[in-house]
């Protein structure tokens, strides 16, 4: 680091720390998809289709997670319904 660099703003995070944060998120996401059973993706699509028959929601507003604990698996379905405008 040269003398001129001392005048630069220090508040900006380094590009390496941005890289690390982005990697941690994408890797965690891809790992969770890797361990989930194959049927989950299709089931998710079908559940979204059923919900859409009644309420208009985007894909990103429906989250499905399968969590394995020691003696049971929990299927968690999280639907964010659109705000009421009437």
């Amino acid at each position, binding site marked *: 680091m*040269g*003398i001129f660099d001392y005048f630069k703003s220090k508040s900006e995070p*380094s590009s390496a720390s941005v890289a*690390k944060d982005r*990697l941690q998120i994408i*890797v965690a996401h891809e790992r969770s998809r890797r361990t989930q059973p194959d049927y989950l993706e299709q089931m998710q699509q079908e559940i979204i289709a059923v919900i859409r028959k009644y309420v208009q929601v985007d894909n990103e507003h429906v989250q499905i997670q399968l969590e394995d604990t020691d003696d049971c698996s929990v299927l968690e379905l999280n639907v964010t319904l659109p705000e009421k405008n009437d």
Partner: protein
Amino acid sequence: MAKIIVVTSGKGGVGKTTSSAAIGTGLALKGHKTVIIDFDVGLRNLDLIMGCERRVVYDFVNVINKEATLSQALIKDKRTKDLFLLPASQTRDKDALTTEGVEAVLNELSKDFEYIVCDSPAGIEKGAQMALYFADVAIVTTNPEVSSVRDSDRILGILQSKSRRAEQGLPPIEEHLLVTRYNPDRVSEGEMLSVADVEEILAIPLLGVIPESEAVLKASNQGTPVILDGQAEAGQAYSDAVDRLLGEERPLRFTDVQKKGFFKRLLGG
């Protein structure tokens, strides 16, 4: 029984072939009879890095198809005792590798050799899957760069689900992280992921850190594995990695910024 080591990465151009040549040579230098197999059918390059491209007569696919015997296809290294190379075919494609064929060749090599180093092609397709399928040990070669780290994580997933050990419920493949093209100056400037960052994300034990070095290009220009360049930091770092692979303790070297003179620091650069 030979120990089968796969050098893999997912991403191309991170240093798999350079690392395979260096680590295979390093194992042989330590007195272990070693063969390095080039799994990159159609894009063979290990022969060039090892400096024996003009001695290739028969290849891996010829042996699988029983067009040549193993002893006809194996190339004995001229510099290093106990070191052999099995080149890839340049004219075929990766479908020429069959699980049964690869297994038969590995079984035959296992009788004679202590270590079999499999140089994987890039990608996650058939060639890469064949290279890792029978492995006991995986060396995951990673550059401190986002796409390489992500691809390494992907390969770790394949090692844990699609290898023979995973499919047969055997003890899992021993995984090692090898960080290559590391530049401590850029890390200290916050421009490059640190070894600690990569270790934290991939969560596998570190085998070694190879500094970015002009010696690597020089070595490949000359067809000499860089580990034979005892003067170069990269060569020494590979020697340390081989020692660690053999269970010895070696402190990490070449990962800190070298001290600069007063004027250089003042003016930057």
